[in-house]
């Protein structure tokens, strides 16, 4: 028989875990998705995402102090009403790095390893105002689906000492809401 104290301990543990999850699930206005365009009938499915990205002061300070800022895009298709994941792509990542000698910002596409330099941060972020994500090929059966897209600053890839402060600081919670676009596949 589980004693009351042990039950209380278990409940406390779950509460803490839920609180931790809550910390990572807060949307921010610095990042927003302006538009999402796709053609679900053509494989592989390509998702054209229109973005507005702006760093907070904390992030800009860290960037200018040599901290590489990682950005990430998640695009996925889930089966409606069943909450089952059909396909997902988590491979689209970018990193922005400041070069003090040339005073340029280096934007690296982590998938293609392509690097571009920008004299201004807004130009570097502006270059990401429209990105194309290609989902892995998938055959969608007839039914209701949702296309979900989210862009965020990947705090788990920050330098280790910053991860905990970044988790609790609102200045580091840079992420869009989940953009959801329902669609239907008919026979």
């Amino acid at each position: 028989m589980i004693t009351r104290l042990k039950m209380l301990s278990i409940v406390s543990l779950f509460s803490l875990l839920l609180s931790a999850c809550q910390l990572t699930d807060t949307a921010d206005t610095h990042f927003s998705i302006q538009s999402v365009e796709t053609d679900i009938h053509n494989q592989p499915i390509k998702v054209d995402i229109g973005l507005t990205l702006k760093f907070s002061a904390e992030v800009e300070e860290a960037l200018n102090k040599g901290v590489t800022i990682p950005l990430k895009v998640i695009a996925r298709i889930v089966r409606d009403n069943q909450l089952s994941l059909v396909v997902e792509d988590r491979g689209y990542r970018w990193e922005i790095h400041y070069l003090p000698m040339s005073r340029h910002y280096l934007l690296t596409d982590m998938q293609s390893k392509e690097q571009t330099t920008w004299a201004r941060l807004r130009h570097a972020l502006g270059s990401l105002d429209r990105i194309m994500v290609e989902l892995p090929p998938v055959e969608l059966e007839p039914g209701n689906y949702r296309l979900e897209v989210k862009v965020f600053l990947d705090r788990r890839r920050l330098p280790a000492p910053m991860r905990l402060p970044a988790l609790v600081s609102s200045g580091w919670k840079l992420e869009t809401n989940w953009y959801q676009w329902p669609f239907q596949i008919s026979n």
Partner: protein
Amino acid sequence: MAVSDLKLRRLLFKTLPVIAALVLLLGALFLIADVKEGSDRFARHYVWVLVSTIAALVVMLASIASRLIKLYRQVRQEKPGARLTATMVRVFLVLTIPPALIVYLFSIQFLNETINGWFDVKVEAALSDSIELGQRFLDMQTLQARNQVRQLADDIDIKPGNQLATQLLRRVSAAGPVELSIMDYRGRAFRTANIDPNELVPSRPSDFALLQAGERGTFAAAEPAPNGSMQVRVLTQLPEQREGINYLIQALYPLPQNFTELAGNIQSEYERFQRVDYLRDSLKQSFILILTLVLMISILLTILAAMNAARRMVRPISELAEATESVAGGDLERVIVSKQHDELGFLIHSFNLMTTELKEASRQNEEARALLRRQREYLRTVLSRLSAGVLSFDGDGYLTTSNESSSTILGIPLHQFEGKSLAEISTQQALIKPLTTRIQTAIDLHESSWREELKLTREGSPLVLMCRGSLLPGYDDGEPGSGSSAGLVVVFDDVTVLDQAQREAAWAEAARRMAHEVKNPLTPIRLSAERLQYKLANKLDEKDQAMLQRATDTIVNQVDALKDLVNDFGDYAQQTATNVGLSQGLAKLNLDALIREVAGMYADPERPQLLDLQLAGGAQPLSGNTGQLRQLLHNLIRNASDAVSGQANAKIEIHSEIDSSQTPNSLVLKILDNGHGLDQAISERLFQPGTTSKKDGSGLGLVISHKIVSQHKGSIQLRNREQGGAVVEVRFPLEV
């Protein structure tokens, strides 16, 4: 099923939490090592490890609090082993926590100093200067390139037909611009020349560069080149238009390779320094946080381990304590199961061995006690059958055993005095004081054996005891007969009857001899005196005749008195002689009638109030000897009459009644007088021959009366009355 449930619960609530805590501790330690490196090995689990560690801390704290509360309650309830457990936990904590805290504080201090040591001000200044130097060099290179490109813009003629491509090619060189392009403000080049003939596509400037060039007429900036080196990009508006459109000339100047490498190194180190400087506080906080978590988990694990260790160590001791209490309470069946092979295991084994031996000893003791009980019962039976009285005392003079005969002989319920001392017994029962005094003397003097005749008085009658005493052997050295005495045993017989019989026999023999020797010469003496009177009376003168007459009268009177005395002695001797044959003369008789007959002889017509008869004892016939009972009545009434003689208000009351309060019933005869009462000097030996208060008494009347009553199995008592006078009470048992 219960065992598997127990194992499952132990796995869920003991083993797994401990393993989880250890894993978390390990994860936290890895995080400490990983923090400085900044690698992504545990990056994905960082938050979860921290949150889980904090959750584990909370659970462990709750578990410890629960155990502490339980331990506190056990201490309050004084459960076996609780205090020892608390003490051991306290000792464990005192031994472990202070060193851990000291290490922790030193670690924090060391951490702070180490991290602060990374940021040398001189290094920072040198790096900043180096970066600034590089930036100035780039600025100079940029300015120089911009001037050159401005000159080029002035020299180049972009009008159609002027060999624009040739002009561009002529101006590219390894020392100058490696690429020259003519492009519009959207960055679309329509002529380009590169020192590398394989590079056909010109490097497109950024929108910002195009915008700057459009707004300000020129743009120049050093930037990273695609090949990892650095280059200076210059955009300058051409002064001439071509076909009405303004164009830009773009020139790319590569920086020296050695500069690029040096600048890269400086930049890399500067970035690292800046980043670490920026992360310094976070780094410290992370280190301290993780160190604190590690310390807390370690301490809490230590506390839990200490509690478990203390509980495990104390458990056998608690079991031993409980088992000892059980054994002390008489439960010898308690066995402790232990698989330990250490000193505690040896102790438990010894305890089990001890209880086994105690059980065997208890069994043997029980058998011995049963045997002792049987022997005591046997002894009690034997003693109860003995006619002699038997008393036993311990070494301190306390009565331990008495048989029924001892109570019967002494007339005292001695079993009520078992466990009491001689002093207490003698205080409460003065009757047996001579006996208790003699026994106390024997104990005090350690007389091994003694024999003595003791005379006591019971209910006014003498009680003669023949006592024999022996000391019981002691057991001081475990061997009988050694050490001090274990007590005393006294055996006594009632020899009163034997003593009285001997006395009576002696008196009877004396009486018989007296009667024979004295009575025979009395008659000749009387006859001789009468003859002298007869022969000499006429021959003497008147004076001598008178003297002769007085002398002969005196002789005759004294002879008569002697004859009466001799007759009394004869009667006494006869009573003693007829003792054995009394049963042959017994007959049913009415005692009241006999009383009237005898009392009538003592009636005085002139004093009718002298005798008062209240007779009610004739309801039941008495079995007795008429002659002896008549003599008894004569003796008693005569004594009463003698006691009241000469008194004006003399009165003798004779009562008879049946006492049915006892079985068998008794016929009670009481003769009361209002005379002078009994002489206290002789009250204790009234029934001994020769005891009398009369001037001319023989001292045999009461002796004979007592003899008669005894032969009729009755009892006789004499005592004084409160209002004066005496009363004699005779009790005859009536047959059922």
